C-alpha cells in the first residue's frame, strides 16, 4: 500500500492557479524527486502536504488515513493539524534554524515540547530528556556534526546549518521527509555535503520527497521523478526514462537548460 496518496490537489492564490489537480502516490522507502522551473508549483505542493497552505480541493492520505479532505473541513482545528503535520518533516531552502539555540537545542526543542505533553512526563522526566538528548547526539553524529553540537547557527556554514535542519526534522521521526530545494541557498562547494547526507538517508530507505534543481542528483537518488510545469504534472516515471528519453516536449525543453 502507498504510504502517501494525494488526489486532485488544487490551489489558487488570487487569480493564479498554482496547482491544477495534482495526483501523486509514494511507496514506503521510496524517494520522489520533483523537478521543474521556478513558479511551476513544486514548493506549493510541498507546503500543502505540510499544512502550511490549505489546498482548495483534494484529498491527502498517509498510511490509508485521510489527513486532509477539502470536502470535509472538520478535524482541521489547530490541534488536529498539529498532530497530522507530524507525519511529514520539511527541510527549507533557507534552513530556518532558530538562531538563539545551539545545534543540539535546535534538534531537541520540538521533541521536548511534545514530550512535556505526555501524561507520564512528570514521573519519567529525567529518562525522557535523556533519551531526547541521546537521539539528538546520534542524529548530529550521523550528519557529521559531532564537533558542532554546541555551536549557534551563525557560527556554522550554510551546509552545516542545512544538515542541522535535516537532523531537526528527523528528530520527530516523520513518515515522509520533504526537502524544498535544500541546496539552492548554498555555495556550490557546500551543496555536495548536503546531497551526501540526503543520499545516505535514501540508502537507509527513508521515504522522501525532494524538490530540487540538482538534476544529476535527482537522477541519481530518486526512484521516481515528477516534472511539473505551470501547476500540472507534465511527465513522471523512472528517472532514467524521464531524464534519458523524455516523452514530452516541455520536459525536453526544460532539461536542455541543465
Amino acid at each position, binding site marked *: 500500500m502507498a504510504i502517501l496518496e494525494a488526489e486532485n490537489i488544487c490551489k489558487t492564490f488570487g487569480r493564479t492557479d498554482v496547482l491544477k489537480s495534482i495526483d501523486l502516490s509514494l511507496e514506503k522507502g521510496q524517494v520522489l524527486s520533483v523537478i521543474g522551473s521556478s513558479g511551476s508549483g513544486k514548493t506549493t505542493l510541498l507546503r500543502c502536504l505540510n499544512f502550511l497552505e490549505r489546498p482548495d480541493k483534494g484529498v491527502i492520505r498517509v498510511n490509508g488515513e485521510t489527513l486532509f479532505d477539502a470536502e470535509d473541513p472538520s478535524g482541521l482545528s489547530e490541534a488536529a493539524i498539529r498532530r497530522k*503535520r507530524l507525519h511529514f518533516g520539511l527541510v527549507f531552502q*533557507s534552513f530556518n534554524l*532558530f538562531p538563539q539555540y545551539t545545534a543540539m537545542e535546535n534538534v531537541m526543542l520540538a521533541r521536548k515540547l511534545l514530550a512535556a505533553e505526555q501524561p507520564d512526563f512528570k514521573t519519567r522526566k529525567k529518562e525522557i530528556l535523556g533519551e531526547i538528548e541521546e537521539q539528538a547526539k546520534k542524529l548530529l553524529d550521523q550528519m557529521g556534526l559531532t564537533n558542532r553540537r554546541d555551536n549557534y547557527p551563525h557560527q556554522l556554514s550554510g551546509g552545516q546549518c542545512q544538515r542541522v535542519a535535516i537532523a531537526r*526534522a528527523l528528530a*520527530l521521526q516523520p513518515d515522509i521527509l520533504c526537502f524544498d530545494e535544500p541546496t539552492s541557498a548554498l555555495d556550490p562547494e557546500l551543496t555536495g555535503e548536503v546531497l551526501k547526507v540526503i543520499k545516505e538517508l535514501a540508502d537507509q530507505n527513508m521515504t522522501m520527497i525532494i524538490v530540487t534543481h540538482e538534476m544529476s542528483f535527482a537522477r541519481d537518488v530518486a526512484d521516481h521523478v515528477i516534472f511539473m510545469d505551470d501547476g500540472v504534472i507534465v511527465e513522471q516515471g523512472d528517472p532514467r526514462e524521464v531524464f534519458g528519453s523524455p516523452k514530452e516536449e516541455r520536459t525536453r525543453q526544460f532539461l536542455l537548460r541543465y
Partner: protein
Amino acid sequence: MSLILEQMPVVIGALNTGFLQTLKLFLVTLLGAFPLGLVIAFGSMSAFRPLSLVTKLVVWVVRGTPLMIQLLIIYYFPGLVLDNPIWGGGEAGRFLAASTAFIINYACYFSEIYRGGIQGVPAGQEEAGLVLGMTKSQIFWRVKLLQMIKRIVPPMSNEIITLVKDTALARIIALQEIIFAGQSFLKGSHGISGAIWPLFFTAFYYLVFNGVLTLLLGQLEKKLDYFR
C-alpha cells in the same frame, strides 16, 4: 566660593527632592508605556481594518504633535472645557496628568518599535515551528520572543534615554521635577536667588542617570549578542 559651600546642602536637598519626582515620572511612564505600546502595536497590525486605521491615526497625531502641547491639553482640558477638573489641584494631580500624557505619548513611540520587532522576525521561523508540531503560543514564547527583544533593544534604548530628558517638559504644568528645583534658585527660593550654579548640578544629575542607563542597556544588548 564659601557662599556656594554654605548653600550647597540646601541646594542638594532641593535637587534630590526634584530628582525623585523626575525619577518617579520616568519609571511610571515606562511601566505604563511598555504594555500600552504592545496593545497599540497589536491594534495597528490588526486584520480588522477599522481598528488598525483608528490606531494608526492616533499614533500619527501623537507622534506628529509636541509632547508639550499634549501635556498642556491633557492637564487643562478637563477643568476648563468639561468643567470637571479630574486631576485635582496640587502636585499629586499634576503628577497624574503628566504621567497620563507621557504614557500615551511614549506608548505610541514604543508601539512602532514593537511593530518593527515583531514584523522583523522572518516568516520562516514560524513555519519551521509549525512543521515541527509546535503550537502558536510555543512558537511565540520559545522561538520568536527573544528574537523580537533582540531587535527591539537598540531603538528602545534610544527612546528611554530621550525619555529621561523629556521628563523636564512636565515643568510646563509646574510639576516640581529637578529642573523646576534647579531653576528656583535663579528666581529665589530658600533665601537663595540669582544662583546659576545649581543648574549645572541639575545637568549633572541627568548626565549621571543617563550614564548609568546607557551602561545597563548596553549590557543587555551585549547579553543578546550571542546569537544573530
